[in-house]
């Protein structure tokens, strides 16, 4: 057994040397090595990063991934401990504005040359690119994209409502929900009760009503926009959604209710694209549900971006530096992004990947098309519920207000607007 492994490694190593002569020359005799931490240990996430590791090894590298299962915060605690001990991993999972925040506490790698060599910048959504180059230099690379405001429609609930048209605007959406309720769907909205779930309902509402107001209020924290009429309208919409939800969800995960959703006991779900993977994993068929972009009042798709990424921490060791270069090249590679997204159900970061081939679902194709359209019409914005729009402290302060509003129906929309503005002020 050990002999075969060695031989395979040798073969893979020499194949990589042949395939990447320039790379091999530049790195001399050093064997690239990568220490990485992430929270991806199980399910499709674990499978995807393991597959990425295999590719890394095929290119002659040594892959040392230590997953920290559980919440993202636990991964961050490990990262914090390693940074404080002066021994950061060569690369770690981190996303959104946290990239900028964490890059202040330890030196990161300047990836500009590798990114330029790959011609990567022009195929990445501009808002997304900005997050990964906080001081004008690329220090992190996005890995995969999800939209947090995809609309999932239950086939059986649609039958009960005698409807076959996918709602485009919020008015269509509300109309369909009413029809579902009248047709015997107990809860027109399927939902969990977690904080991000509640946050997603709000961000989908506001961005769907006005992407410009979302950008100003949530991404730029413009105080006038925060108290503007669009934010109030979004809270009004959130209350409608909350009234259509099962009040018994407590703090349950959204996946708890997937069976009731497919059975037509619940009708629509506003959820990230990852729900497709969860539905498929639970054994449901593509015929059971339809995926479409979330409601948008100007009828052009709005895309709430959520992207996983890797940040690269400065290391002195030559093998780790070589490993970082190799990893960066791999993460930007269209073939690798295709492999990764096909495992997890996300869409590639690169907007030039062709999704018409086999291995992609209609939902993924629609998501990718929506992203392209949204970028073209400047309607691709960053998700606040999934920590893409603001740092964790500010995000949590905003979600506090939203989650309380969803659960407490005595709070009026105008009160929620004031509280949101106050929470932002207090957390800044």
């Amino acid at each position, binding site marked *: 057994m050990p002999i075969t492994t060695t031989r395979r490694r040798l073969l893979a190593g020499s194949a990589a040397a042949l395939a990447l002569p320039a790379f091999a020359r530049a790195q001399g005799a050093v064997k690239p090595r990568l220490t990485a931490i992430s929270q991806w240990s199980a399910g499709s996430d674990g499978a995807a990063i393991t597959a990425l590791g295999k590719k890394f090894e095929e290119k002659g590298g040594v892959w040392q991934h230590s997953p920290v299962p559980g919440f993202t915060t636990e991964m961050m605690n490990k990262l914090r401990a390693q940074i404080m001990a002066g021994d950061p991993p060569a690369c770690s999972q981190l996303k959104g504005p946290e990239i900028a925040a964490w890059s202040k506490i330890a030196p990161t790698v300047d990836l500009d040359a590798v990114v330029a060599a790959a011609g990567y910048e022009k195929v990445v959504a501009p808002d997304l690119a900005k997050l990964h180059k906080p001081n004008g230099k690329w220090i992190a690379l996005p890995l995969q994209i999800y939209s947090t405001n995809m609309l999932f429609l239950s086939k059986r609930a649609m039958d009960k409502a005698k409807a076959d048209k996918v709602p485009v605007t919020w008015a269509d959406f509300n109309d369909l929900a009413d029809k579902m309720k009248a047709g015997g769907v107990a809860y027109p909205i399927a939902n969990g009760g977690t904080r991000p779930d509640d946050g997603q309902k709000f961000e989908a509402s506001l961005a769907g009503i006005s992407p410009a107001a979302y950008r100003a209020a949530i991404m730029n924290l413009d105080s006038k926009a925060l108290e503007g009429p669009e934010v109030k309208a979004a809270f009004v919409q959130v209350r409608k959604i909350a009234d259509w939800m099962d009040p018994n*969800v*407590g703090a349950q995960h959204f996946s708890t209710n997937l069976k009731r959703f497919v059975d037509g006991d619940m009708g629509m779900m506003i959820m990230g694209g990852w729900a497709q993977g969860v539905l498929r994993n639970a054994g449901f068929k593509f015929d059971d549900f339809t995926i479409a972009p979330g409601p948008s009042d100007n009828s052009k798709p709005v895309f709430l971006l959520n992207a996983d990424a890797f940040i690269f921490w400065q290391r002195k060791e030559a093998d780790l530096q070589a490993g970082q270069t190799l990893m960066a090249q791999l993460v930007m590679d269209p073939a690798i992004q295709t492999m990764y997204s096909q495992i997890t159900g996300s869409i590639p970061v690169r907007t030039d990947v062709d999704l018409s081939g086999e291995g992609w679902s209609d939902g993924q194709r629609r998501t990718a098309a929506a992203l392209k359209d949204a970028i073209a019409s400047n309607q691709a914005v960053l998700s606040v519920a999934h920590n893409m729009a603001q740092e964790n*402290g500010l995000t*949590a302060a905003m979600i506090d207000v939203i*989650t309380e*509003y969803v659960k407490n129906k005595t709070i009026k929309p105008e009160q929620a607007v004031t509280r949101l503005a106050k929470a932002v002020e207090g957390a800044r």
Partner: protein
Amino acid sequence: MTDTAAAAPRGRPARPGVVGRLGEHLTIWVPLLLSAAHLVSFSLWTIWISFTPSTLVPASGWVGLRNYTSVLASRNWQIAFDNLLLFGSTFVLLSLVTGLMLAILIDQRIRGENTLRSIFLYPLAVSFVVTGTVWSWLLNPGIGIQKLVHDFGWTSFRFDWLVDRDMAIWTIVIAAIWQSSGFAMALFLAGLRSVDADLVKAAQIDGAGPIRMYRRVILPTLWPITITVIVIQLQFAISTFDLVRALTNGGPGLATQLPALVVYDLMFQRNLLGRGAAAAVLMLLILLAVLLPYAAWRYFWRRRATHA
């Protein structure tokens, strides 16, 4: 260390010299000093951090009371503090009453006492995360007790406290009482068993009935134990974290926030170490407000006992 202890002569009174009792001294003092140093140094460090502008990682600098004022002004902390008052007082009172009742009932020289005692004490052996998770299922109206009663045919029955903002805090009280009234029972039972038999006999001769006997003779001797139980339960209430995290995770909305949840949230989810440390110090102050009077009380009580 163990060798020295084992080598010390057994059965005979030990020599009073320090050398002869080296083993004992090492066994007691080394762990005691280590844990005290741990406790004190980390507490001091937390207090220091609470005055710094630390966010992601500890940073030096001085911001005065800014972290404290911002924690005290936050809705999260205010809700958590109100909840703590409500939860702490009702939980302590109810677990005290339940524990005492169980102890009195078990004290009636009943058959199967050992089995019953184990059953009542057993929840204490279960981790709070398990308690929280199990109760979150039982109390969930869609799958738990409410559904069971509905399935029996009583469909108008409602027991949805877990998802009701105003009642959710009581679900934590219920779960906490289930977990720890066995502990109160054990202490009370020990107290009941140590009541002077002569006292009881004298009361019987004087013609006291069972209720009067408990009220006038037995229970008054239990009050030192009562205070111990109150203090132990109170410090448990103040530091409650895992139970509420598993049961409601502070929800619905922010309805069941507790101080320990706020500390964790600030430090590890919002990456605001300074503010989290300030909240932790505030928790320490609340604890001291319980423990210092208790220490003072014990001190005076002992002094009175030795003088008398």
